[in-house]
């Protein structure tokens, strides 16, 4: 009879989620491709001075409005600026602003959603009615209105995008909180003497992380799309700052005269990046959320 030592209790082997994820990725070339696109975009943005073949703002009238060539892979614009270099430099804003907005939305949404979900009652009612009020507006209309009210500037743009995303996080976390707050480990945390704050943020919130990661990935894509749309409409990034949406707006005026590349290439950059974020988000959902597994 073994009581104080229990060598007989077989210990299951340690699972390695990262390795599992990589193995799964290898069988899923589409998600792998999407991940590579995102990594390439990030690297290009970070190392823009090295990655870009020209200075993005160097004008050279002699090569203005040239189509794709070996010298200028994606052609040049009215001022003879190299389009590829401009797209690479613009990636900095295109990735950074949605990222900042997502981070802010995530922190605010999680904090309020977690407390509302855990406490329930009147607090939950008030918060949820506010969320519903915000969500009653179509996201883009809300973003346009806010952008117009706040005025231009990169900081304001971050705020606008964040505001459109907060309700999503809030509802997501509130739902997750409702699920985990009645788990036995929540009760166990209470019986050993944890206060509500510690229970919410140390014990319960970490158990809601997988859907947050998925949502964050997806909302990077949505954030980029919102920003590009606003910029296209002239409500977001304005020259001299450049951004893909703003570049398509500039390029759009050249379509009639046949210089299609100025519109198409920044547009493709938006499409591929947003698509890549969505695909990676879906793949993460499959990986992290067992409930969604096998649902396609």
């Amino acid at each position, binding site marked *: 009879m073994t009581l104080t*030592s229990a060598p007989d209790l077989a210990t299951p082997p*340690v699972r390695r989620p990262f390795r599992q994820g990589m193995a799964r990725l290898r069988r899923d070339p589409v998600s792998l491709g999407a991940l590579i696109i995102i990594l390439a975009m990030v690297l290009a943005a970070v190392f823009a001075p090295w990655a870009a073949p020209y200075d993005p703002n160097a004008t050279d009238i002699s090569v203005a409005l040239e189509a794709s060539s070996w010298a200028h892979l994606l052609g040049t614009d009215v001022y003879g600026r190299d389009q590829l270099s401009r797209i690479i430099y613009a990636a900095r804003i295109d990735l950074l602003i949605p990222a900042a907005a997502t981070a802010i939305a995530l922190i605010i949404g999680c904090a309020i959603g977690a407390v509302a979900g855990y406490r329930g009652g009147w607090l939950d009612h008030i918060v949820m009615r506010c969320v519903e009020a915000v969500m009653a507006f179509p996201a883009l209309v809300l973003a346009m209105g806010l952008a117009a009210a706040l005025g231009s500037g990169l900081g304001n743009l971050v705020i606008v995008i964040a505001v459109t995303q907060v309700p999503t996080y809030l509802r997501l976390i509130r739902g997750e909180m409702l699920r985990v707050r009645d788990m036995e480990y929540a*009760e166990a945390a209470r*019986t*050993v003497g*944890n206060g509500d704050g510690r229970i919410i943020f140390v014990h319960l919130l970490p158990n809601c992380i997988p859907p947050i990661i998925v949502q964050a990935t997806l909302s990077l894509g949505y954030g980029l799309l919102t920003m590009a749309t606003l910029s296209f409409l002239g409500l977001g990034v304005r020259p001299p700052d450049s951004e893909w949406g703003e570049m398509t707006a500039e390029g759009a005026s050249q379509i009639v005269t046949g210089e299609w590349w100025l519109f198409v290439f920044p547009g493709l950059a938006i499409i591929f990046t947003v698509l890549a974020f969505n695909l990676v988000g879906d793949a993460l959902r499959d990986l992290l959320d067992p409930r969604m597994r096998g649902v396609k």
Partner: protein
Amino acid sequence: MPPLLEVSELSKAFPLRGATRMLATFRGGPQAVQAVSDVSFNVAAGETLGLIGESGCGKSTVARCITRVIDPTSGTVLLNGQNIAALDKTAMRRARHDVQMVFQDPTAALNPRLTVRRMVEEPLRLEGKLTSTQRRERLFEVMDDVGLGRDLVDRYPHEMSGGQRQRVNIARAIATHPRFVVLDEPTSALDVSLRSRIILLLEHLRKRLGLAYLFISHDIATVKYLAQRIAVMYLGRIVEEAPGAELFARPAHPYTRALLSAVPVPDPDAATERFPLSGEIPSPLAIPTGCALRGRCPLAQPICAEPVPLRDIAPGRKVACHLA
């Protein structure tokens, strides 16, 4: 010597909500579910009191009221003379180090995102008496106590087997040297071979550390093995309380007789005499007046409609039945 834990007239009602409440108002029925009513019992230091009954009888609600996971509607819970039912949040958090709980499902009761070390050390950190070195020592001490290897402290729950997880739960419960531990069906989710080990571990810890247990279970054989005294609950009330051996030899309440006779005996030659009750447990919203067993009891008499208090019938034996 006064008992370590003294529960008197503990009651808990869960108010109905939403559509159910509207329906109840419309029909003129009760607005709350009386889960526990007027439950009183004592547990002496170093003793195990078994609490048995079928699902919905309120035994888990009693456990949660004593550990203040939920707040009782009325009644007192004296632990070492201190009424923990009346403590405010902050005072209760301090008192928790003296009364701990082990849950039914070893997997659900462990936070999947925390390591064993963090979970077992947490009550010590919250108690705030020990330095971090002392806490580490205490951690290793309780790991030894519950028979877990020290190499397991940095594991996550999913990296352990079911038996190991329940040992972690027990380690967490005893880390702060509590004198009283509530065990809420700690063996129900375990397989036969693990169950016997956990039973022996609990018994070993009680003897060695002088713990007192409130052992809640529907597994009557396990309660018989562990408990010195047993209380039987039916529809929120204690209907009988007796020393373990006495209860099994001479059950006094018809409900106890029915419950004990329904337990399958692992002996094909055992002469079992069923004492069947008719029908099913009534809804807790429609508990009969007088003796709650009235509608189902084969021995029922007109007098059973009268209120039936829990009374002494012999030293250490209590029963709530007019006919016993």
